[in-house]
């Protein structure tokens, strides 16, 4: 899926993928925003590829 990001919270690591996860939603604002960022960059990446 590309653009994988990790969020570290104490001992937990959240893998931020384009698909998102319940864990990210439960992580609150940081999780939601991190997920949106990954989605956004994934979209930009795809858009760029399409225009090439």
């Amino acid at each position, binding site marked *: 899926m590309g653009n994988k990001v990790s969020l570290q919270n104490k001992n937990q690591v959240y893998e931020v*993928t384009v698909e998102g*996860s*319940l*864990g990210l939603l*439960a992580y*609150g*604002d940081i999780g939601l925003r991190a997920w*949106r960022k990954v989605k956004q960059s994934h979209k930009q990446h795809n858009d760029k590829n399409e225009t090439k």
Partner: protein
Amino acid sequence: MKQNKVLLIGWDAADWKIIWPLIAKGEMPALKKLMSKGVYGNISTMNPPYSPMLWSSVATGKTPDKHGVLGFVEVMPQLKGIRPVTANSRKVRAIWNILHYKGYKSNLVGWWPSFPAEPINGVVVSDKFQKVHKNPKKKNPIQKGTIHPESLVKSLQDLRMFPHEVTAAHILPCIPKASEINQEKDIRLQSFAKILAENASVHATSTNLMRNTEWDFMAVYYDLIDHFCHTFMKFHPPKLKEVPLNLYEIYKDAVVSAYKIQDMMLERTMQLVDDDTTIIVMSDHGFESGHRRILKMPKYPAAPALEHRQFGIFVAAGPNIKQNEKIYGLGLIDIAPTILNMFDLPVGEDMDGKVALDIFKQPKEPKYIDSWENVKGDFGQHKKIVESDVLDNEQTMQQLVDLGYIEKPDENLEIAILKTKCDLKHNLARVYLGKKDYEHSKLLLLELINTKFPKYQESDFKTKNAENLIKQGFKAGDSVIDTIPFYIDLLSISLNENNFDKAQLYLEKLKALDKKYEVTTFISQAKILVGKRKPHDALKLLEVAKDRKANAEVWLQIGIIYRRLSHFEKAKEAFQNAINIEVDRAKPHQALAETLIRLGDYETAAEHALTAIELVKYFPEAHYTLGEALEKLGDLENAKIAYDTAISLKPKKHHRAEKAKENIEDKVFNPIEVRDKSKFKYQKDQIVIVSGLPRSGTSVMMQMLQKGGIEVLIDYNRKPDQSNPKGYYEYDPVMALHKDNSWLGKAQNKSLKVVAPLLKYLSPKYRYKVIFMNRDLSEVVKSQQKMIGKNPDVLPIHLFEAYNKHLRQVEVWKNKEPSIELVYINYKDVLDNTEDVVEKVTSFIGVDMKKEAMVECVDKSLYRNKS
């Protein structure tokens, strides 16, 4: 960082029945951690259990008649239409208003209702924030009044999640077989996405505010569990036979997944607060998850409403909260007073709740103020009703309809407004009913049934509204307002007021209005029959109901009737059956406890009384029964505490408990060997009752008392005759004592004749000295036979049996009633040992009497009908 903060988290409809198995499996670790650090228990809901009303009671400590939020919807100003309920409906100050006045900072997220956001110290993200269009193409501007302060709109607006953002990664852990759903026919996945997105928005906002703002009090409300339950509970295991297997397989994990998500959110929330913060997690009611689940909503819900269970959850942990303890008897209205106490602020005397002192390691003595409503100053309230210009409530209204909270509003605006007004008035009547304020409730209900409402015309069924009307069961000619629910409540009030003639009238009316009104008829009809002293007919009816569909209420009523008939073993069995069906209902436990006392099993009685109290603390009868059981077990100290509690619980004065407590105090401070259950001392304003079977010498005892100087309450309506040449000494209202005992105050410091079967109707409000006349039963029957012109030598066996039963019942009644002292006087002794009898009677009554005159008035020549 601020210290001693309080974080209140609302999980609408969370229920221990689902939570306990999840905790056991380690699937709700955050809640488990919180419980182990703090206290947990049931919290009882109120009637009617509608969430906006309940959460407003949580926030204000007041019942809905006072706070004014009476339903899911409200009428817009200038009668422009109806809309989801707003904070404008709340007439009183919430906890955050009081904290504002005192200079504290509060954050409020998603509270229902909280739009338009109030201008308090802190941040309000109202319940309108998370409501967005499910259509991704539609714009979703943040409306004015959604967030306070408005300056935060920019930084918070991206925290709304949209249903169209929900992906397979969110769905599959909850609904693993989602790919099998036919989304053209089944819209549940859309509901899933909407509910999840809304709750994710609330959570993202609350975590943001927790991290970025200073606050003293924060309240966050989630409807994730409630809305998942309304949508998916029918698919929750065990499978109901009416549910198709394929749908069951698809959705069976959905409800549990809501709890797990909520727990994950809690875990994150707990990371964001320090050890100085007190966290409260609570729900406003539970949700049926067992055999009482409802697949198809009946048209006329019975109180308490349907799928919502009586008990929600309460968990609290913090620096001054006890550790790992179960607590009992909390109510929703206790939350606001308890939080005020945490902030060392006074509780309004006009608040209905109390400070839950039991939860604290070191409880602070509650302080009180008449009312926070009378305090002048800045409470962070709106200066005037704030109305947003754009009111796009269509989506929210539709969600309320989808969840079954409201019926689809009528297309005709006038009718929609009329229906809403009637609904709100009816809800208020139900609030009064729940508070046992029957007068106010009746006023509203009578107003509703006496209003002439417009009727649906044929033409209404040719509009696009027709489908909606047909779905709601209307046809042309029907009143636009269905009056059946009003009659149901009027029936319930009449039964509670023992007005059985009126109850019968309402029941007949209901039967005429709706032929299908069968299920509740059994119970109501049985109650009426019992009230009209036909318990055997009532039993027959309930047996039929039991065989058709046994439920806890039917068994409870069967038990009550058996107990009344003094068939205690059968009553015990019936109450046990009720408990087997519904173990967490307080009333059957209390009823069983009371029965076990009559059967002499005091220990088990105490256990059941305690269970009833664990379930509902505000249950004076259960405290009284516990007191009785403990008293019988010899634990006078704790019995007194139990009686005290029964007395202290409002709203009704518990006369029995007051007398029982006085008795215990007498026992403790002045132990006397009691004979005949008497203290042989005058009780203030006592009523002397002369009783016995008819023809057992009651009239002669009345004469003796009169001659002795005790005023008699008689009306001379029944003239002396051959059977009683000196008069009957009767008072007509006594004959109707079972219907009306309100006049008994007139008998204070007087004597009154009451036949044995009517003794049990004496009001526990007064103190009684009962002189019970005993006479050889064959003499009694012979005398009666003679009196009614029958052969005195033929003695009917059934009369003997009936009289023996009455005498046994008097024994039980005498022991049970704390306001009663009783001595047995043998009629034969009145004639043969008159002086001894006079001695006993006068010392029993406890006042100076003219003993000689009493002795002289006994005319032995009247002693006839010897056996």
